[in-house]
């Protein structure tokens, strides 16, 4: 359990990082959300064997990491949490697709391995971009941006509350687990039955808390809408940030830069 606890403390770290004051952090959240969206759409739209054309896209996450002063080791660690999903999706490709696509010396590399690598690369870039978005904007501001861009408020409020009470819930769950392990001996008391009853308790406590929170909101005049206080304002150069990156992404999507460079160098040498 200490594992889960420390993982969640890590989310707190993310919050701290997102409150830095850099050029990237100061950008309007909507601009960052949209740019990230264009980035992700471009990256995932590549064919399954594309690798070289993907590489230039690394410039965007790197740009943000450098200018946003983000701890890259921390972000990579976060990436590895989600990595098993991507690995599972691609792990059978080398077995299913054995046609040799690429010959490096005596070693033939099959289409399966190429597509597997492509999946991993795309996973790293898309999930990385999302992490960077949160790390430079903050969860709360991302939600506010979504709301301003027309996402129904019901969903946005759900997201906000999910985030706020994740900590309380994990706290409650870890206290329960601690209490159980202190009174369990030789594996007795750690079975499914007890787990079921614990999960049930947690659910009941959660609904109880939800009622109290709702009451607290009603007491302070809540009528169904959460009014954001901080007005968001997009400045001209921020639009340029969005447009500039979007154009670059589309260009990188349409033209395979590394290949063009390769043919150019080849032409130059010969």
């Amino acid at each position, binding site marked *: 359990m200490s594992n889960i606890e420390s993982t969640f403390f890590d989310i707190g770290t993310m919050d701290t990082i997102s409150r830095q004051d850099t050029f990237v952090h100061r950008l309007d959240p909507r601009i960052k959300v949209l740019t990230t969206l264009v980035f992700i759409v471009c990256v995932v739209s590549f064919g399954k064997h594309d690798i070289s054309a993907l590489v230039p896209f690394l410039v965007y996450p790197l740009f943000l990491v450098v200018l946003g002063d983000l701890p890259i080791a921390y972000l990579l660690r976060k990436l590895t949490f989600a990595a098993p999903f991507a690995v599972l999706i691609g792990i059978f490709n080398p077995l299913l697709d054995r046609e040799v696509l690429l010959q490096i010396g005596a070693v033939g590399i099959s289409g399966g391995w190429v597509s597997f690598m492509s999946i991993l690369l795309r996973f790293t870039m898309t999930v990385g971009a999302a992490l960077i978005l949160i790390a430079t904007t903050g969860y709360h501001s991302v939600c506010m941006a979504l709301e301003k861009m027309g996402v129904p408020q019901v969903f946005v409020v759900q997201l906000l509350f999910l985030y706020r*009470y994740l900590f309380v819930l994990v706290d409650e769950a870890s206290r329960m687990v601690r209490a159980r392990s202190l009174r369990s001996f030789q594996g007795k008391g750690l079975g499914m039955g007890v787990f079921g009853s614990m999960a049930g308790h947690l659910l009941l406590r959660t609904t109880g808390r939800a009622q109290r929170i709702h*009451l607290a909101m009603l*007491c*302070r*005049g809540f009528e169904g809408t*959460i009014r954001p*206080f901080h007005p968001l304002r997009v400045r001209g150069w921020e639009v340029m940030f969005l447009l500039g990156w979007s154009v670059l992404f589309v260009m990188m999507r349409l033209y395979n830069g590394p290949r063009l460079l390769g043919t150019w160098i080849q032409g130059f040498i010969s």
Partner: protein
Amino acid sequence: MSHHIVEVKDLRYTYPDGTPALQGMSFRVVHGESVAIVGANGAGKSTLLLHLNGYLAPKGGEIRIGDYPLTKKTLQTVRRTVGMVFQDPDDQLFMPTVYDDVAFGPLNLGLPTAEVESRVLNALSVVDTLHLKSRPPYKLSRGEKRAVAIASVLSMSPDILVMDEPTSDLDPRARRKLIELLKTFKHTKIIATHDLDMVVDLCERTIVIYNGRVTADGPTLEIFENQAILAESHLEKPLGMQGCPVCGNSVQQFSSLK
């Protein structure tokens, strides 16, 4: 200023599962009074508080807050008048930052931005937590959370403050600070608590409830001197009014006050 009055007449409530919680409770709290509601666990304190802001609707009897009887129509006005501080500040602080949380009420009242801002800053500085304004609530200590929860109610400028166990889970210093803070408030205060020593410090009047009924209502010191009432309601004299645990001498401090 009759709008600071709380009047409860023959209030009755039974929970849907059949548990009788309030069985004919009556009292009247007037402007500027500071009243403690004390009673054993399960005596009906929390149920009573839930009635004062209209979260539970009485099954019998009547509640008047200020000039209005508490009905569906007056609910909004009543909630604006009665500020409620919850026992668990985590239930009350649900917004992403302290600032947003304190601004939540005023924004819902539809106040203009400048007014919201000044109210938030004012409320935060009253409880001495201005430096926490951009922090997320889950990172605060228990005492800080409590202070912010109080600020989030103060920012709505209520006439009546209702508090559920305000000193629970606080360290002695934070508890003392809170008591000193509450002393400075001019609001009508209704405080449900087990902390009888705080009651002695803070409330000139005490209402004792037991099994959903008022068993005693009067000046705090008089009630805490009455062993019969305390025993009947599963309470004990506040520690400060008991004898010294080492030498057994009784403390003269309170008797001299009378």
